[in-house]
């Protein structure tokens, strides 16, 4: 069995895993598929138009085209997707996760808010890498926050 330690909500886990991979592929933009034409017209950009500012200067570029989302959003999706796929491997640390995941998620969100505000006020200049990493931390801690619902029994049968 591929994921022997996944105890609950397996169907939901599978659905979310599929959607996450799909989301990540779409978020990577038209460059991933070597699409031609101006990037603003790519369907990937249209898909995320309402969800991200899509500033090309704040996005990674693949094959001469910016991704369909900014680096922070991409970090969130990538962090969430990667840790989600590795979720069954976390079962050994479930006690730690159960105790600290909430605090870690709040901490990750706080760090991102501070990063955005301090950058806007001009005290700190964030970069593509720093935005990706801070975004990825949100995505990963969100998975940790949900982990115990998949790895341990929380409901009476």
């Amino acid at each position, binding site marked *: 069995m591929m994921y022997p330690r996944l105890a609950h*909500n397996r*169907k*939901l886990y599978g*659905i*979310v895993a599929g*959607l996450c991979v*799909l*989301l990540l592929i779409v978020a990577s933009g038209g460059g991933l598929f070597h699409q031609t*034409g*101006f990037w*603003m*017209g790519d*369907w990937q950009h*249209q*898909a*995320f*138009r*309402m*969800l*991200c*500012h*899509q*500033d*090309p*200067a*704040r996005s990674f570029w693949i094959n001469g085209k910016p991704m369909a989302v*900014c680096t*922070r*959003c991409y970090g*969130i999706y990538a962090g*969430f997707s990667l840790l989600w796929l590795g979720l069954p491997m976390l079962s050994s640390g479930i006690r730690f996760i159960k105790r600290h995941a909430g605090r870690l998620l709040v901490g990750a969100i706080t760090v991102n808010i501070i990063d*955005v505000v301090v950058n806007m006020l001009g005290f700190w200049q964030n970069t593509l890498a720093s935005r990706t990493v801070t975004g990825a931390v949100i995505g990963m801690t*969100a998975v940790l*926050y*949900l982990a115990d*619902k998949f790895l341990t029994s*929380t*409901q*009476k049968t």
Partner: protein
Amino acid sequence: METTDQQKPGVGNGNGAPSYWSSVAIASVLFGIIAFIISITMIYITINSEATGSFFSPSQLIGVLGCLVGAFGGMVATWHYASEFDVPIKLGKGALIGLFTGFGISLISVLLNQLWGLIDPDMTQQMIDSMVANFEAMDLPEEQKQQMIDSTVQNMRSQQSIGSQLLWGLPMYGILNLLTGMIGAKLFGKDEDELA
């Protein structure tokens, strides 16, 4: 009044569970309006800003702040459902509430966009003019500029149709709100142990 476990709304998530549609509707309307306001504000700031020759316009500042705001409808819907009925919410149910809320947000924002088109029918053309002026101010080869302008004009026009807006709005808002709906279910839904 005494209630049995069977009568307690939502216990066991069986047939007695209260409907989540009111929570879905409330969150959909709320976040649909927020998504619409963000979109319309960005459009008007773009229309009224001077051509800078940069891809990043002042309107996108709102986008930076409002990034992913539309994804939190699922969380709010599960919060409303949990606080209204004081029931446990399984993760799958939270995901479903989030998914439907995402669909609702997309529908409401598209509907409001269409209605706004009746109030200000020139908005799209003004937006196109503003973007074209911005591209023309860019320091790029003429051929490349023309390609960008053609693509953007075509893109902006096609985005005005209800079908095009729903084609991307429904799945994207649906997926992201599904995820936040799950988080909301964990955050706000009481464990069944607490109610037992």
